[in-house]
C-alpha cells in the first residue's frame, strides 16, 4: 500500500463528517416537530466560522495551539485506519495503541485549551471531559483488545477484523456495551455532560470563537464519525464484502444508519449528572472487562 491510502482516509473523513452532523440535526429537528436546517448546513457553519474574528481570551500560545493539536491528532488517528479493508500506509509504524493515544491526545488538547482560557465554565467542562475520557477510553481499548485476543496481532486491520471473528457471548456483550458507550463517545444526550450548553455554556469551548472554534467543531465531527465507523467495521465487519468500492459504500450506509440511531436516542433522553454518569460508565467498564475475560476463555 502506498501513501494514497492515507490521503483517501483523510479526504473521506473530512468530506463526510460535517454531513453526518447535518443528518443528526435534521433527525433531531424532526423528532422535535421542527423543519430543521438543510443537510449541508454544517459546511456553511464551518465556512462562516472560518471567516470570523479569532477572539483570544488568554493571550498565550497554549490557547492558540490547542485547536490545532486537537484537529491534527484526531486526523492522525484517522490516517492510520484500515478503511474499506485496506491497511493504511502508516500501519507499519503504528498499531492500536498509537490509535488510542492519538485519540486521547485530541481530548487532552481540548482540555488544555479550555484550562488555558482561564474561564471557570471552561475549567468545569475540562474537568468533566477528562473524567469522561478516563472512564470511557477503556471501553474503546477493550473493544479493540477483543480483536487482539482473537487475532493475536496489535495491527489495526487484524485487530478490528478480530472483534467479530468469533460471534459468541463476548461479542454480543461487547456490542451492547459499545452501543451504549457510543452515545457518550459522540457526546450526545444523555452523556453530553462536558459541553452541556444550557448548564455550562458549551464548557471547554466557551472562550473559543471564529476559526479556532471551527477547528474544534470539525474535530468533534471527525471524532463522532470515527467512533461510528469503528462500530461498523469492528462489529459488523464480517458483513462487509471484499471489493473495496462496494465495501466503502456499504460502510458509509451503515455509518449513516448508526447516526440516525444516535440522533434518536439523543433527542429523546435528558442529560445525566456527572456523578450518575460515572457510575454508569463504571458499569460499562466492568461489563467490557467481563467480555474480554469471556473472549480469553474462548466464549
Amino acid at each position: 500500500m502506498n501513501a494514497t491510502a492515507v490521503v483517501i482516509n483523510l479526504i473521506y473523513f473530512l468530506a463526510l463528517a460535517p454531513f453526518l452532523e447535518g443528518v443528526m440535526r435534521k433527525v433531531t429537528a424532526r423528532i422535535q416537530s421542527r423543519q430543521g436546517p438543510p443537510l449541508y448546513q454544517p459546511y456553511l457553519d464551518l465556512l462562516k466560522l472560518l471567516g470570523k474574528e479569532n477572539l483570544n481570551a488568554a493571550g498565550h500560545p497554549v490557547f492558540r495551539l490547542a485547536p490545532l493539536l486537537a484537529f491534527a491528532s484526531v486526523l492522525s488517528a484517522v490516517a492510520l485506519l484500515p478503511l474499506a479493508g485496506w491497511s493504511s500506509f502508516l500501519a507499519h509504524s503504528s498499531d492500536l495503541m498509537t490509535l488510542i493515544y492519538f485519540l486521547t491526545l485530541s481530548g487532552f488538547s481540548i482540555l488544555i485549551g479550555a484550562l488555558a482560557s482561564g474561564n471557570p465554565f471552561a475549567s468545569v467542562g475540562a474537568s468533566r471531559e477528562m473524567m469522561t475520557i478516563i472512564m470511557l477510553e477503556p471501553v474503546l481499548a477493550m473493544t479493540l483488545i477483543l480483536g487482539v485476543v482473537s487475532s493475536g496481532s496489535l495491527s489495526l486491520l487484524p485487530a478490528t477484523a478480530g472483534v467479530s471473528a468469533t460471534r459468541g457471548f463476548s461479542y454480543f456483550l461487547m456490542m451492547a456495551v459499545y452501543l451504549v458507550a457510543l452515545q457518550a463517545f459522540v457526546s450526545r444526550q444523555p452523556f453530553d455532560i462536558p459541553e452541556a450548553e444550557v448548564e455550562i455554556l458549551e464548557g471547554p469551548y466557551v472562550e473559543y470563537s471564529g476559526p479556532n472554534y471551527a477547528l474544534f467543531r470539525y474535530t468533534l465531527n471527525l471524532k463522532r464519525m470515527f467512533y461510528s465507523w469503528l462500530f461498523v467495521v469492528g462489529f459488523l465487519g464480517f458483513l462487509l464484502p471484499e471489493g473495496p468500492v462496494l465495501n466503502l459504500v456499504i460502510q458509509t450506509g451503515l455509518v449513516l444508519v448508526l447516526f440516525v440511531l444516535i440522533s434518536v436516542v439523543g433527542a429523546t433522553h435528558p442529560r445525566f449528572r456527572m456523578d450518575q454518569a460515572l457510575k454508569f460508565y463504571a458499569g460499562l467498564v466492568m461489563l467490557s472487562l467481563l467480555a474480554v475475560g469471556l473472549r480469553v476463555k474462548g466464549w
Partner: protein
Amino acid sequence: MTGNDGFWPGLLSLLLSFLVTIFLGKKARPVRLAGTILISLSCFFLAWQGVMVLGGGHPVELEIKIAGLHIPVLLDGLSALFLILLSVLVLSATLFAYGYYEKTEAETLQKVYLALPVFVAGLVGLLTVDDLGPGFALAWQLMAVSSYLLVRWGRPAAVSTRPALVYLAFMESAWLLITGAAFLADGYRFGDSLATVGEKLSGSGPAAAAVFFGLLLLGFGLKTGLFPLGQLWIPGAYSTASPPVSALLAGILEKTGVFGLIRIFFFVARGAGDGFDPGLWGQVLVAAGTLTLFIGTVQAIKQSDYLRLLAYSSIGQVGYIVFALGSSLLAWNSGSPLAISLAGVIFTGAVYHSLNHGIFKGLLFLTGGSLLYATGTRDLNRLGGLLPVMPLTGILAALASYSIAGMPASSGFVSKWLMIAGNFLAGKDSLLLTLAGIVALFTAAFTLACYVKFFGLAFTSAGASWKLKKDVKEVPASLLVPEFFLVAFCLSQAFLPGLYLRLIGRSLVTTDGFLLAGSSAEIPGTNLTGIQILEGPALLAAAAPLAMLVLLLVLTLLARWLRQSAGAKEVRVPVWLCGYQDLNENNVYADRNMFSDLKKFFRWTGANKNMVVDDEELAGSVPGEGKGVSL
C-alpha cells in the same frame, strides 16, 4: 583487575567532597561551590566507568577487604546501565542544588553538603556491591542514614521530623528483611556473592526458597514503593525533602529497588533452579504491580500539593515496571517460542521505563523545585496562569508531563508500548495478563489527568496573580540549565529508541547469569523479526515515533492553514463570564474542584486527606484562610 579506572576516582571525589565540606565549615558559598564541583566530577568518573564496562563488554569484578570482611564488588552491564542513569541524575540535581540553595542559611547548607556525597556513595554501593551481607549492609546504611538526614533537613522540624523518622524506620526494616532472608540459603556464609547465594538456595528446599524470594520481594518492594508499602513512606519523604533531593529519591533511589528486584528475580533466580517457581512469582509480581500502578496513580490525582502529586505518581510508575517484570516472567514460563521472545521485549520495556522514569520524574521534581523557588508555595490551589511569567519552566514541565503521560512521540510512549503490547500478545490466553494489561492501559488516562492538572492549573488557567503575595519571576539560569540537560535526555529517549534498545541489549549481554538468556532481550532489533507485533518489520512502532511526529506536524500545518484560510484576524478580549462580572480571585477554578466527582467515586483507594501546609504558614506570616477559594 583492570577496567575500574572510573570507579575509585568517582568514590574518591565523593569522599573528598565530604572532607572539604567539614573543612570549609560555615562558609556558605565555598561549601556550595566545592560540593557541586566535586560531586559533578565524581559523576563524570562514574559515567565513564559505566561506559567502559558497556563498551568493553566484560564485567569487572573487585574485592574490597575491610577489617577482615571481604566485600565482592561486581560492575557488570546492568550495574553500568544504572550507574550511567545515576550519574546523569546526580549531575543535574547537584547543579540544580547549587542555585536552589542560594538563600539557605550556612548551617543547613553545610549539613546538606555533608550528607549528599554520602548518599550518592551509598547509591553507587547498592548498584555495585554483589552480596547480601557486609557490603550490602554498608551501602544500605550509608544510603538510608544520609537520606534520612536529607529528608529531615528538607523542611522545618515541625513538619519533617515525622516523615523522616517513618522513612528511616521502613528503610531499616527493609534492610533487616533482605539481609535476614539470605540466611535461609543452606550453608550461607555472611558475605557470599549473589551468584553463590543462588546456588546454595537450589539445595535448600522449595519452602526455604519461597520464603527467601517472598522476603526479598517485601524488602525491595518497600524500597520501590509497592502497594501498600510505598504509600506508607514515599509521599511523606518525597514531599518533605527539598526538590533536588526528591529528584534523586524518585529518580534513582527508587530505581535501586527495581535494580534489586531484577537482580533477585532474573539473576539469583536462575541459580536457584527448581527452588524458584517463575509461574508463581510472575503472578505475584503482576498482581502487585497492577495494584500499585492503579492505586498510586489514582491517589496522585487527589493531591493539591504538587510535590505529593509527583510522589504518588512515582508509586504508580514503579507499578508499571514491576507489572512488566512479572509479565515477562510469566511469558518466559509459558514455553511457547513466541512468548519467550516476547518475554525479552517486555523485560526490555521494564528496563527502558526505569531509565525513562528516572529522567522525567527527576525533571518533574526539578521543575517542581523551580515552582517552589519562584512562588514559595506547594499548593496548586494558589497557582495558575504562570506560563507568561515563567515560560521556560512551563515548557520544561509540559515536556516532562507529556512524556510521563505516555503520549505518542514521547519517551513514556515507547517504554509503555513495549511493556503493554508485549504483555497483550504474550498473554492473550491468560486472563490475569490480559486484565492486568487493560488496567495498565486504562491507568495511562489517569496519569494524563494527573499531569493535565499539574501543568494546567499551575501554568495555564488563572489565579496566581491574586493568590500569591509576591511577584513571580522566571527562575535563574542556574536552575534552568540542569533542567534543559535532563530534557535533552528525555527527548533522546523518545526519538532514538533504537539507540537505547541497543544499549539495554548490550548491558544484558555484558551481564552473566540472566534468566532469560537466549531470548531476544539481549540483542533487540536483530532477532525480534520473527515476532508479528506489527505487519512488516517488528518493533518499528517503537523504533519509528518520528513517523508519528511527522504525521502530527504535517496535519497541524494543515489545521493552521485552514485556520488562516479566510484571513481571520486575532483580537485580544477579556474572559467572558456571561457579562455579569470579570474574572477575579473569587471566581477562578481552584484545584480542589478539579475531578471532584471522580475523586469521590474513587474514595475507596485512599489518600483522600488533601491538606497543603506551606513553609511560610509554619512561620505564621500568612494566615491559612488566604488560600484558594471555596466555591
